[in-house]
């Protein structure tokens, strides 16, 4: 059905005719029929609205109350007080900055590494399938387990693998840094980059393999070198996939809780917004403030999501169109 509806119209437009030409005409006596068509969709739709939209409305309402769960009777309407409290709290402001740094560093580094790996894997060599499998493994370790692995087994200053390797190569006099306390944010980022690079690689590899081989051959016959092919054919083709990887990566990494919670427990200036929200209501019991922070996180995500939706929508359009 989707192929008959192929149309260059943006999928999100609200035209009445719409891209669904084969849908039954909306004659009044067909109202029942229209509901019959809608019926299979409704359980999922209603479920999603109830479970994801209602809590958010509640968060919005709570964010306007001064409400500490240890003093439930002292709950009162506070207007924008929670918001001004957050925006003037240096710790919370710092957690916004931390979230941005953590997300940007992780996403950009794993994109660059992922691109390099995708280019390496796009060539034929012996054992390519096995190398791909090896590379995917970090992404498939349960996030909490991965964070524990980095914290205890790799970073440990006394017997972690990193310092052990320094001893191997540098002898007894080798430096033995305490990775987590000397560079806490970098430590968290490194473990996240390790987990997210395979994700980027997979998306970019899919992008590389959807290139038109004829176009590249034609360019080669015209005398284009490897770099020129990469710069003027591969990179423009990959742009959309790079954007998609960056945006999906941002959406997941902005929400990261596991690594921060496990490696540093939010200490040493690594508390990001999700961790701060968690702490505000789980340990400080400040429901109103936590909700206001949650609303701010949503606003931030909406900005990212608007771009993300546009990218996905353009890929989606291309895919429907190409069928």
């Amino acid at each position, binding site marked *: *059905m989707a*192929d008959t509806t192929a149309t260059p119209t943006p999928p*999100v437009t*609200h035209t009445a005719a719409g891209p*669904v030409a084969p*849908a039954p005409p*909306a004659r009044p006596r067909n109202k029942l029929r229209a509901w019959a068509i*809608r019926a299979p*969709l409704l359980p*999922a*739709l209603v*479920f*999603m609205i109830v479970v*994801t*939209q209602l*809590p958010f409305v*509640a*968060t919005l309402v709570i964010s306007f109350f001064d409400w500490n769960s240890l003093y439930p009777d002292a709950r009162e309407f506070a207007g924008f007080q929670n918001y001004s409290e957050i925006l003037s709290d240096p710790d919370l402001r710092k957690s916004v900055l931390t979230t941005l740094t953590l997300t940007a560093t992780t996403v950009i580094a794993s994109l660059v590494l992922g691109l*390099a790996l995708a280019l*390496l894997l796009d*060539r034929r*060599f*012996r054992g390519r399938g096995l*190398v*791909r499998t090896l*590379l995917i493994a*970090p*992404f*498939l370790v*349960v996030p*909490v*387990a991965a964070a*524990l*692995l980095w914290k*205890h087994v*790799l970073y440990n200053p006394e*017997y972690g693998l990193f310092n*052990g*390797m320094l001893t191997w190569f540098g002898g007894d006099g080798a430096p*033995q840094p305490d990775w987590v306390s000397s560079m806490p944010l970098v430590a968290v980022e490194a473990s996240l980059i*390790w987990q997210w690079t395979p*994700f980027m690689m997979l*998306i970019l590899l*899919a*992008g590389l393999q959807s290139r038109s081989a004829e176009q590249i051959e034609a360019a080669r016959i015209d005398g284009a070198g490897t770099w020129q092919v990469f710069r003027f054919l591969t990179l423009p083709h990959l742009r959309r996939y790079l954007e998609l990887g960056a945006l*999906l990566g941002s*959406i997941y990494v902005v*929400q990261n*809780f596991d690594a921060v*919670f*496990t490696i540093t427990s939010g200490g040493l200036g690594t508390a990001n917004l*999700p961790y701060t929200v*968690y702490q505000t209501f789980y340990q400080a019991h400040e429901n109103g403030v936590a909700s206001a922070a*949650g609303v701010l*996180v949503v606003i931030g*995500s909406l900005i990212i999501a608007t771009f*993300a939706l546009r990218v996905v*929508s353009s*890929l989606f359009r291309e*895919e429907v169109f190409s069928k």
Partner: protein
Amino acid sequence: MTTAKAGASAGETGENGGAKGGAQGGTKGGAAVVAKGAAKAVSRAGAGEAPPLQRKARRRSAALGLLAWLTGIVFFLPVAWMVLTSLHSESDAATNPPSVAASLTLDGYREFFGAEGGASPWPALINSMTASVVSTALVLLLALPAAYALSIRPVRKWTDVLFFFLSTKMLPVVAGLLPVYLFAKNTGLLDNVWLLVILYTSMNLPIAVWMMQSFLAEVPVAVIEAAQIDGARLPVVLSRVVAPIAAPGIAATALICFIFSWNEMLFARVLTGVIAQTAPVFLTGFITSQGLFLAKVCAASVVISLPVLAAGFAAQDKLVQGLSLGAVK
């Protein structure tokens, strides 16, 4: 190496020597045969390139292949080290420099499963399995009809509906966490694995709808129409006609949903306690150091990651499609 091999095998009959030489490129005594294979490739391509240039390209190609292998190994090293450490005794696991060749033992696993006293991980593993499997089943049950209404017999403005599902995925989890917590507290659902089932279902439903939508779009409409002419109603059409045709896609969707539910920790951490804690929450017990416990931590990580590793490797090709919500094929 590959070019020579391809050239040789593409060459006409009786070129076994060339093909073999190409395959063995670099081994002693094969040089002459390799040259023959290369010459064959050149003459076939008709590019008229000199053999040294071919050899240079081949060397470059081999170097890049080696580089790919090296990075693959570097990325895999922490995982390999985790597995190796889990098989060492606690004292061998905590040495500097690392003892690679220490004798192997299953003590770490024994201790993780509670041989030395301490909490058994089985309740947590069973909770995780329940939450992941049941929520995945629920997701499929809701997503299959929804995807049908979005691809085979699409409702009006079906793309808008599709994008609504996607947009819910972009709402940060923390934003809805507090109301869910308060709701659970007031209804006595705190520390109840079924609340996680509901939440994981909502977490994965958008992904499933997107994936299934693209899988169902490939089901031929004629087959469905034939079934409907025979008088089959929608549930029958879905279970007897659509599901078997889209089975590989449904399996991939199920694997992705399973992985995400299994990995989830924020909801589980906040909403469960002693009874309903899941495997990732059980792992958080290892966050603070407890003396010599590296082998135990590694054993725990290996055991808890095993279902995901197995599912992920099995669905390697579908992984990217699920993670990009069906946007990348």
